[in-house]
């Protein structure tokens, strides 16, 4: 197709399509957290405290939102170094998030809560926790790939004041998956008390 596109709306169709994709992802997690609630309602459910390291995950992901915002603001101000620093920090924090998640699963497993708990039917609660966190982590990895692509484009000087669509879409996606984790954290933290 051509490089140009005619449209009459006030938002770029690519960006609009991203919002719709995020809506789809939101439905995926609504489905999973609803499944959690439904299964918990059936009884035979083991309540446990969330691994403490998940709190660090939350802090890390919020920090990464700030660095992402810094990169985006720098792009709007045409400060290429700022974009590079912002994006690199975001990628590092994203990797750190993945690491804290892994630590959390290790912590769980040290307490006898595994992804697969064949002998204890009530510990499906742990399977749910890990499945939801892992499916979320896949979206974080998607975001890391996206960030790397944008970083590559920045290196080639393709991201600047007059070309912010890509980085602004990346910005939207990253904040979304970040806040999605905050929602999941709060959900998983408070769900046992419902």
């Amino acid at each position, binding site marked *: *197709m*051509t*490089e*140009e*596109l*005619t*449209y*009459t*709306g*006030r*938002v*770029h*169709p*690519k*960006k*609009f*399509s991203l919002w*719709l*994709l995020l*809506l*789809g*992802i939101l*439905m*995926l*997690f*609504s*489905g*999973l957290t*609803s*499944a959690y609630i*439904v*299964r918990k309602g*059936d009884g*035979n459910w083991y309540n446990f405290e969330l691994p403490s390291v998940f709190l660090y995950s939350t802090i890390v992901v919020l920090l990464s939102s700030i660095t992402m915002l810094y990169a985006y603001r720098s792009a709007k101000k045409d400060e290429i170094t700022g974009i590079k620093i912002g994006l690199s920090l975001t990628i590092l924090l994203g990797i750190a998030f993945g690491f804290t998640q892994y630590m959390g699963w290790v912590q769980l497993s040290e307490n006898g809560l595994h*992804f*697969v*708990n*064949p*002998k*204890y*039917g*009530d*510990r*499906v609660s742990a*399977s*749910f926790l890990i*499945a939801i966190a892992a*499916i979320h982590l896949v979206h974080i990895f998607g975001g890391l790939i996206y960030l790397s692509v944008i970083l590559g484009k920045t290196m080639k000087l393709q991201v600047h004041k*007059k*070309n*912010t*669509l*890509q980085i*602004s879409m990346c910005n939207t996606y990253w904040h979304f998956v970040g806040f999605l984790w905050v929602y999941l954290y709060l959900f998983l933290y408070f769900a046992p008390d419902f």
Partner: protein
Amino acid sequence: MSTAVAHANTEEHHHHKESFISKYVFSMDHKMISKQFLITGIIMGLIGMGMSIAFRLQLAYPDTSFPILEWLFGSKWAPDGKLDAGYYMALVTMHGTIMVFYVLTAGLSGTFANLLLPLQIGARDMASPFMNMLSYWFFFLSSIVLLSSLFVETGPASGGWTIYPPLSALPKAMPGSGMGMTLWLVAIILFIASSLLGGINYISTVLNMRTKGMSMTRLPLTVWALFLTAVLGLLSFPVLLGGGLLLLFDRGFGTSFYLSDIYLGSAGALEHTGGSPVLFQHLFWFLGHPEVYIIIMPALGITSEVIAINSRKPIFGYTAMVISLLGIAFLSFIVWGHHMFITGMNPLLGAVFLVTTLIIAVPSAVKTFNYLATLWRGNIRFTNAMMFAIGLVSFFISGGLTGIFLGNATLDIQLHDTYFVVGHFHIVMGCAAIFGMLAGIYHWFPKMFGRMMNKPLGYLHFWLTFISAYLVFFPMHFIGLAGVPRRYYAFTLLPEYGVWADVNVLMTLAAILGGIAQLLFIYNFFSSIFIGKKASQNPWQANTLEWTTPVERIHGNWPGEIPTVYRWAYDYSNPAYEEDFKMQNVPDEGQDVELFETKKQSVLSTNDESVVENTNFFDLIRNWFKPRTA
């Protein structure tokens, strides 16, 4: 505006250099993609129909040998020409999957959303032609994966198209739970990807790319229906994806989301505890119910358009039609429990689902009433498309009425898993949607291929299909009321059902007749592509914008400027005008053309984000409902 024209011309210039591959294979032109969806859908439909005839033969003549079955399926699955019992289940499963997802979801909305959305709203293509192409190829790949499961050693998935655990979650449960089931899941995940890519594109296109003057309230009802269908898909398919992922974890890693401590004959007690198979049903039907509206809504949209055009009357109650579509779309998300009345759910919850289910009858009845009121005293032209559209109305009524039976929890306890259910959903969603799809094909064939289909053959196709469809599915209600269960391979060991043997023979003969009728259609379709009569630009004298494009179907749709819209799509037989139709792009004499003139140039580079700045979400929503000015 001159830049827009210049721009359109350069665009055309670009597209003339297309190679065979970029024009016919990896095409990004929405019209070509719609043909790809249609032809893939037709091929899948033939396969699905062939399967149904094979298992109908088994039901009518359980002890008879049909050498053709052995020739088709091999001596493993049809030894001595008699279907293997497990393979019978596999055929039923594959028939359901193919028809529901591949023919009536992708084949129907994939074809018509691609063809009609840009043409009817006045856009040169979809919001993202690339995503559109990906959507088709994911669908194609998914079809190949699904069909390849027919050739694996243990056979295709055979636990029913609803893939309830434990049969779907335990690879060892039965032959069809093995590799065939894994391929089924992979195929559906690819299908969900295709459906999301397509759906996101359709929504984005309708909301952002309408031409000048095309407000939401001037959209043809086909566009409304296809748009809301895409919304339903976007909101419901991810939930199935979630459910499917948990199922994959159970199958692959040994988790216990859906599996509890089951004893399996061959493997002894299983190492699974604590899972809930009903949980899967919740997740499945949260997609599954909207899915039936994903199937029927495009067909209803097509019918609205075809009936209005061929009655030469404005559609009766346009606003009511839109509101009832919105109502159906909303209600479809809160009725899924009516598929699960006998799972032991809380009776209070069952009562809630009962009420929401019966409320769906209201918008459905509004639509039916409006179809009939549009036909009432119309100057009806019985084109092939019109016959099929009226056929849809017939099926929608007779199938919808039995839905009211099944929606009642108390009646459903008796009728669940009987042929009553099979009869109900085949009429209301199978036949009605297929008739809508056929109406659409007959109606828009001139737009797709520039030629007309053979009319007498079309009539023959209609009557044979209509009669055979009722003969197959109507008797099912009676045997269902008598308690004959669905998904049984043969009733020879159950003498109490012996009285229904003749009815089964009748249904099978009717199914074969229906199959022959579809071969007529296939001949008509493919031969008309090459030798059909050349179509004129507006053969049905319709009002919508697709008939303002040249017959040659150029990339970019309109050679010059995109037409501006001055009216709604249903100005038929308006006494104020001489002709009995007035196209959407024709202004009234003295109509204030200035009103629609350009305020701001709207050709922007894909990377220009200036319009996005300082725009908040609510302004956007408000903006969508205003007529486009620029």
